[in-house]
């Protein structure tokens, strides 16, 4: 146990023990611990195995920035142990190692495979022989990836809430600068949200002795009215939308102004053995000590390029760790921290760095010396190697928001160069690292953001200007940093540039040799920066290596494009709640009760059948059937110019339709292609009731609205699709059934085919259209959707004695096929004109009114189509697939295709529709259909299969 005596500001509660298991073993932790701190406290040093070589990895940053501590928690893979709070009873397991974390069989890839597995080896190795690819794929898929998603759905799914949050100002980052920005903006009246990835506001202050200050600053921001979100990393910046992931909530923050105070990311150093457990960033070591009172080691060596490492050495000494030596790359390190170390008798080697870490399974010693080696190297024993490569500004989110960076040679990092409008940066990311400057820069940025929204007054503006001037006068940046070499020590040895993807310095060398000599290409080839750390630990080292390999400057190499997500995030978090916006007719519940099999039809849920499609179709011919057609698009077109409006939209004439009469219409695009069809009933001189296909309803409404916006016509359009239910009652007994539910005279004299009448049906005021899609005498009854079940029930009850049965979409499709009615989108495609679809009669080129598609249809009329839609019968009884090819009489290729085919129990044969060469569009012609390689001879039919003259329909 390495738990220290109480530390000031520690997050743990020593009175509240928490138990959990790690790989089945019970672990005692304390409330406030993370999984990582608790495991470290009980002596665990290996936390994971690396992605490719299965090397041991231990805690590095203790801040959720690297890939080293990924574990599986309660079945969820990819959880960072160092930031995951402990919970009583939680089950933590290692990932990516088998059979155990300590003995991992796949470690062989490191021991023997290393030289044979350079970047891209799988592109080159697993391509031959081609037939083995399925096997390769299986093996590779098993070997690749980290962790396993639980098999059982219950374990796999967890709930994530979406929470849309609008704000005036979003502050990203909850350190000193962020808290100051939030407070300043909120005090000026802005609605402020602050998103911070840390467990509590305060950032570095929490681990560096500034806990009280952090608490006060957070309290100040809260009192001013800011909403502070902790454990809430921002995932990306999307044109003003910033998703912030907080546990089981995904906040979608839309703010008018954005202040980024994302700080810097402490960089590792590159040297052979830099991935050994026991190599830890200075910030990680300090967090273990300050936040969790865990002693990170007994004897430490510190290698640094700036004061961070020196401060860490002092903190370690304070925690009782022996600091054997501090290697500071700066030749002239003389800061107060350096002096303090010397006073304590610590050996401080200037202009020195770590050249190698040694040990088996854990750091046992380090080689220190001048960069590149000068013959005075020294090997020292240690069990903790603390490194600090300085801080790289965390600019990814800023760059996603449109900021630009430029290389700062003095600090050796890419620093902010410009910001887009509405975006502000403060604190260390903007170069203000010292506490007072960070807070001042935050306050200025927060105030400026609020001012830009019209908040504040002359005084606040003056204060912001003064603050800004003070900042520009004050020291910028850290007190002094040495730029580390791309690799210290033996460059040929194993040192890792990218810990996530196991990419070594040598791999980058090889990628350049192979021609991937730009940072973007190298990124794709080696996958550097594409792992869970998202470039935090590896972008800068990779750029330095690339510069060294190509001889370019770092400025010339540049950075890779910053892309979301900035933080690795489970897909389930992005997916949201699993609800599908399905439309249902008002009769849907009844269909379910009647045993309907329900299917998707566009965005509707509709009955496919009620279990007996054949019987349902026959009932329509023998007695009567009832189908719910509420999904049809329904539009009211009203106004003095309504007739002209429709004449302009349809190729046939509608302005001469008499009130109470119905006409069929197809809608054509300006290219003369069929885009929808339906019926039009004239209600009165100025009102039409237009129906469309179910799936075309929305598009037709938009199409009509679009043209109406352009044409100066006195017309109003109302979409009543969802407001009206509609059912089609059809069959030889339909009239008798109607007589039982309505007073309307349904005799063929009083209510002829293509008449529309308004009357009560079962007490519901309805529009009754005498039309027939299914070939029998039919009444399409449209009425307020709220009466759906009432009217449906009444009709079924009235028809019970007449053999009335409900029927679904499948029998309807068969019935309409018998009548050779087209289904737009199934029997037609984007190239079908009314001429090709055997409907030349619907195009009235002689009408005075110009209409959409006229020009194209005039040309189509002059040039007969090459293919035509016809019916066919198939004597051999096989039902070809929809889409089956129509073959030429001789030779290869395809000259048409089957669009619909069914076996008709009524007709006792297989019938269908197909596009065939126009020359074959005559009764009795024979065509060959290829269905799954089998050739079928079909006979062409040009008139409906059932009731070709429409006598039944009109009777």
């Amino acid at each position, binding site marked *: 146990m390495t738990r220290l005596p109480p530390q000031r500001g520690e997050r743990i509660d020593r009175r509240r023990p928490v138990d959990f298991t790690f790989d089945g073993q019970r672990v005692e932790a304390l409330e406030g611990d993370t999984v990582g701190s608790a495991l470290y406290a009980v002596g665990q040093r290996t936390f994971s195995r690396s992605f490719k070589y299965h090397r041991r990895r231990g805690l590095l940053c203790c801040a959720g920035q690297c890939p080293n501590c990924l574990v599986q928690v309660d079945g969820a893979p990819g959880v960072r142990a160092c930031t995951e709070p402990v919970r009583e009873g939680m089950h933590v397991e290692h990932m990516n190692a088998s059979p155990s974390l300590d003995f991992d069989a796949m470690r062989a890839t490191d021991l023997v495979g290393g030289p044979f597995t350079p970047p891209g080896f799988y592109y080159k190795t697993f391509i031959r022989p081609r037939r083995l690819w399925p096997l390769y794929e299986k093996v590779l898929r098993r070997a690749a990836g980290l962790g396993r998603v639980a098999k059982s759905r219950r374990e796999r799914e967890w709930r994530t809430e979406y929470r849309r949050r609008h704000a005036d100002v979003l502050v990203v980052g909850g350190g000193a600068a962020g808290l100051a920005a939030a407070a300043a903006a909120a005090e000026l009246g802005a609605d402020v949200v602050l998103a911070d990835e840390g467990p509590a506001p305060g950032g570095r202050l929490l681990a560096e002795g500034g806990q009280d200050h952090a608490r006060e600053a957070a309290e100040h921001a809260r009192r001013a009215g800011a909403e502070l979100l902790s454990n809430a990393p921002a995932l990306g910046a999307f044109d003003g939308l910033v998703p912030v992931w907080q546990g089981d909530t995904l906040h979608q923050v*839309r703010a008018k102004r954005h202040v980024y105070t994302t700080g810097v990311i402490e960089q590792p150093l590159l040297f052979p053995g830099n991935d050994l457990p026991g190599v830890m960033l200075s910030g990680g070591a300090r967090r273990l000590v300050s936040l969790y009172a865990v002693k990170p080691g007994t004897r430490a060596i510190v290698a640094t390029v700036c004061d961070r490492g020196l401060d860490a050495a002092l903190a370690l000494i304070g925690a009782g760790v022996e600091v054997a030596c501090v290697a500071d790359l700066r030749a002239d390190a003389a800061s107060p921290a350096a002096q303090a170390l010397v006073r304590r008798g610590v050996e401080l080697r200037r202009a020195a760095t770590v050249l190698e870490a040694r040990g088996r399974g854990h750091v046992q010693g380090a080689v220190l010396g001048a960069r590149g080696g000068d013959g005075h190297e020294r090997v020292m024993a240690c069990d903790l190697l603390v490194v600090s490569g300085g801080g790289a500004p965390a600019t990814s989110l800023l760059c996603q928001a449109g900021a630009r960076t430029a290389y700062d040679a003095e600090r050796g990092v890419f620093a902010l160069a410009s910001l887009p409008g509405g975006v502000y940066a403060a604190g260390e990311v903007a170069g203000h690292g010292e506490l007072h400057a960070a807070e001042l820069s935050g306050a200025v940025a927060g105030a400026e953001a609020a001012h830009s929204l019209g908040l504040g007054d002359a005084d606040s503006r003056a204060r912001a200007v003064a603050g800004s001037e003070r900042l520009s006068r004050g020291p910028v940046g850290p007190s002094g940093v040495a730029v580390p070499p791309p690799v210290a020590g033996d460059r040929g040895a194993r040192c890792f540039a990218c810990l996530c993807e196991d990419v070594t310095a040598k791999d980058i060398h090889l990628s350049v040799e192979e021609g991937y000599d730009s940072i973007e290409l190298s990124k794709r080839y080696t996958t550097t920066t594409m792992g869970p750390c998202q470039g935090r630990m590896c972008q800068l080292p990779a750029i330095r290596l690339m510069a060294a390999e190509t001889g370019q400057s770092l400025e010339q190499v540049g950075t890779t494009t910053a892309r979301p997500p900035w933080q690795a995030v489970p897909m389930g978090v992005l997916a949201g709640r699993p609800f599908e916006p399905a439309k249902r007719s*008002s009769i849907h519940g009844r269909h379910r009760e009647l045993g309907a099999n329900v299917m998707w039809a566009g965005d509707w849920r509709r009955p496919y059948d009620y279990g007996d499609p054949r019987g349902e179709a026959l009932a329509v011919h023998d007695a009567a059937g009832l189908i719910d057609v509420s999904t049809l698009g329904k539009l009211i077109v009203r106004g003095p110019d309504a007739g002209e409006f429709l004449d302009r939209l349809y190729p046939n004439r509608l302005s001469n339709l008499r009130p109470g009469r119905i006409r069929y219409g197809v809608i054509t695009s300006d290219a003369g292609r069929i885009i929808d069809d339906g019926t039009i009933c004239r209600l009165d001189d100025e009102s039409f009731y237009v129906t469309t296909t179910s799936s075309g309803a929305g598009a037709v409404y938009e199409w009509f609205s679009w043209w109406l916006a352009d044409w100066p016509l006195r017309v109003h359009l109302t979409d009543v699709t969802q407001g009206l239910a509609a059912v089609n009652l059809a069959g030889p007994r339909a009239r008798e059934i109607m007589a039982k539910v309505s007073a309307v005279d349904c005799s063929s004299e009083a209510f002829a085919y293509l008449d529309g009448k*308004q009357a*009560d049906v079962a007490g519901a005021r309805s529009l009754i259209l005498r039309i027939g899609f299914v070939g029998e005498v039919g009444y399409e009854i449209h009425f307020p*959707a709220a009466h759906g079940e009432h009217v449906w029930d009444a009709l079924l009850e009235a028809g019970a004695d007449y053999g009335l049965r409900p029927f679904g979409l499948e029998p309807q499709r068969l019935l309409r096929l018998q009548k050779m009615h087209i289904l737009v989108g199934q029997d037609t495609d984007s190239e079908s004109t009314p001429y090709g679809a055997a409907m030349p009669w619907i195009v009235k080129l002689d009408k005075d009114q110009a209409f959409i598609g006229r020009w194209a249809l005039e040309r189509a009329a002059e040039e007969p189509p090459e293919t035509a839609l016809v019916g066919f019968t198939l004597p051999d009884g096989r039902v070809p697939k929809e889409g089956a090819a129509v073959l030429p009489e001789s030779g290869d290729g395809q000259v048409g295709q089957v669009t619909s085919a069914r076996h008709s129990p009524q007709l006792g044969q297989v019938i269908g529709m197909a596009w065939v060469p126009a020359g074959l569009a005559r009764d009795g012609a024979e065509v060959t259909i290829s269905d799954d390689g089998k050739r079928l001879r079909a006979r062409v039919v040009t008139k409906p299969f059932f009731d070709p003259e429409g006598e039944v329909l009109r009777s």
Partner: protein
Amino acid sequence: MSLDFLVPSTAAVARSPMEREALRARARLETRDGWTVAVSFDEPEAERRACNETVAFADLSWLTKIELQAGAADLAAIVASCTGGGRLELGGAIRVGGAWWCPYTAERAVVLCEPGAAARVRDRIQEAAGVAGGLASAVDVTTAHGALAILGPLSRELFARFTAIDLRPQLTPVGGFRPGSLARVPGAILREAPDRYLMLFGAALGRYVWTVVSDAAERLGGRPVGADALEPFEERVPEAASHA
């Protein structure tokens, strides 16, 4: 031929598109103005608590909805005539005589009222349209939209779960009317009172919207409540804060 076939009739049972969901949640139904209305659920105390402490939702699909279309000047004249001088501005509704007048555009608005007041509102619109003289149409779209009242202190939190419409008071004050995407489908939100909203959506999506709202409300400690749990409006409050 008139457009009467769009108007629900009192001679036939009218049901909300969410009636089955309400029944599953153990609603008690009563017939009112021809509609079966979920008047209460089985725990009056829980309903009261949800309204006052968390969030509650009530099915008001039976509200009459009339879509009014006219040229901008004519629409303004009709609204002014029917509301005693009221003026519609985009983003804000006005409430007069128990009816909400909610503008979608300068040329299209929806009027919401109790079924009992529908005939009176319709007549006034006809009359005003006649005086305005231009082309105007009033179409009953009652059954085209489902309607849910959302009330309680966590109402805005509930909406935040499924819509990006900004309901902060500075953008959506009482009387604010905000058409937009609700749970990924078209709809609109009317803020009727500080903690009370009415949301409109396509009737065919009733079951889906109920599922989304109920799922989010449950998570926030809320629940469905009956129409009787809603306090009657104090006409004065929203009118004073309206855009009239």
